[in-house]
């Protein structure tokens, strides 16, 4: 599916969406995503790649540009032993798949990774290992699959489930 990018030091929202670029659109913010820890990341990451991080991934601010930048770069999933709660909610809202994987640290940069979100399974095609992750709750998976909260609301409005006064 995609290549793993492993980050070992703590990853906060200022690294994912750096302050000086916050006044610009997501295109510009994404160009600087994680540059403080890996200047080559934003230019080299490919759609379908997977980001692996340490616990409390995405701690810090409420800026949803942090997960949105990863999604904009085409990151298929973020795997970490735990996420900052605010980052986790934001990721789902912007349609970025995130999975809590206690054993995420067993993955190495460059490993070929395949993610099965519905069953909470991660296959490492490089080593053959299969890692179990906490499955994403169904109501949240629906939202991610819809592309995030905005398209999901759009669908609900179209179906007449939601009134927009």
């Amino acid at each position, binding site marked *: 599916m995609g290549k793993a990018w492993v980050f070992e030091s*703590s990853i906060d929202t200022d690294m994912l969406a750096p302050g000086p670029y916050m006044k610009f659109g997501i295109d510009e913010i994404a160009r600087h995503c994680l540059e*403080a820890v890996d200047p080559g990341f934003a230019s080299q990451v490919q759609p379908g790649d997977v980001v692996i991080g340490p616990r409390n991934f995405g701690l810090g601010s409420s800026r*949803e540009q942090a997960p949105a930048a990863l999604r904009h770069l085409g990151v298929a999933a973020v795997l970490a032993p735990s996420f900052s709660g605010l980052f986790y909610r934001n990721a789902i809202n*912007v349609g970025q798949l995130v999975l809590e994987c206690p054993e995420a640290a067993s993955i190495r940069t460059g490993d070929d990774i395949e993610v099965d979100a519905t069953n909470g399974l991660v296959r490492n095609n490089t080593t053959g290992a299969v890692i179990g992750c906490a499955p994403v709750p169904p109501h949240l998976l629906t939202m991610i699959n819809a592309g995030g909260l905005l398209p999901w609301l759009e669908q609900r409005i179209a179906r007449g489930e939601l009134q927009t006064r």
Partner: protein
Amino acid sequence: MGQTLTEKLVARACGQTTVTPGDLVTCKVDLAMMHDSGGPRRVKPMLERLGARVWDPDRVVVITDHYVPATDDDSRQIVATARDWVQTAGIRRFHDGIGICHVVLAEQGHLRPGLFAVGGDSHSPTGGAFGCYMFGIGATEMLGVLVTGEIWLRVPQTIRLDWRGQLTHGLSAKDMMLAMCARLGMDGGRYQSIEYAGEAVRALGMQERMTLSNMAAELGAQAGIIEADATTRAFLAAAGLTDVDIDPWRGDADAVPAEHHAFDADSLAPHAAAPHSPANSAPIGDHGKVDIDVAYIGACTGAKLVDLRMAAEVLRGRRIAAGMRLLVGPATAQDEAQARHEGTLGALLDAGAELLPNACGACAGYGAWRFEAGTRVIASTARNFKGRMGSSSAEIWLGSPYTVAAAAVTGALTDPRLLLDRAPGLTDRGN
């Protein structure tokens, strides 16, 4: 078994008599606060795409603070969008350029015990100081709230952080907070609800209680709540709210929190956090000799009136060290006016402070104020992540307003008690 305050607040908002931690519930939102950065400029195009309107404009507060005063065209555009949008959306509770959102929200009387509130900013737990359940959300989730008036929540567990004893002179809520960050780490809150309790918490004025609730974010909690009492009631009365009923908003005596941690205020020493995490906190004496270039009293966390008073207590009649810069950005215009009136601001300026606008300023790291490579800064702000306030080689230390002021005088990390008289401090600070 009784219910914690957290459980009572959530149960009321989701229309149940009781709730069980871990359950998924949908809550009605009483109040939604947005600022210029995560607010109108982000939600306006999304609302337009949906053809939707704000569910209840009277439950929305908009405050500009991140990009004010605007220093370039992009920032001007962001703030202009906020001004236009509140007009179209019919939002009357709009505070433009009068201070930092979390402090303005309380000062303008928008918070009261019992509310279930969300804010488009990670330090929204600040509202918890008033016995509200308040937490931060991102812009898209805010859109969901604006359209539906509701939000989903996993009912949080309650983590009680209990402070026994009394703070001694030269110590403050910020030192308590840094000590909690050191002990529990930045994910110790596990995105659950913290309730601050105990004698030392009850002895704090509202603005220092706000510092505790504010930095619940640094503990990784969703909310940071303090039970309302006579101190809360007095603050709210001054903000124009005289009809507040605090009695329903107490935890039951037999409620059992999921986790409980005890701390001792009597023996607490002034703390500072080394770069690049609030969890790198330790008593100042443990850090060794640290030279400092810039001292910064700023942010919702550390530049309220009470914080300015602490800094003034150290700086009155003194000058900052040669080569040192002291930046002071009072959290709100009202706090600045009071500080000016009573001589607090004068003491800071006479000592050599440079006055910054009543806005996020250097704390956000968005605008004109960015610290240069190699600079070592000590700030009264909440977080010191690498690169947040400037170059990634800038070193940001965190301390209380007393500690930041002491560093300004000596040019190095210093225990502020060495520069303070032995007179009691807590009672002088007020608020």
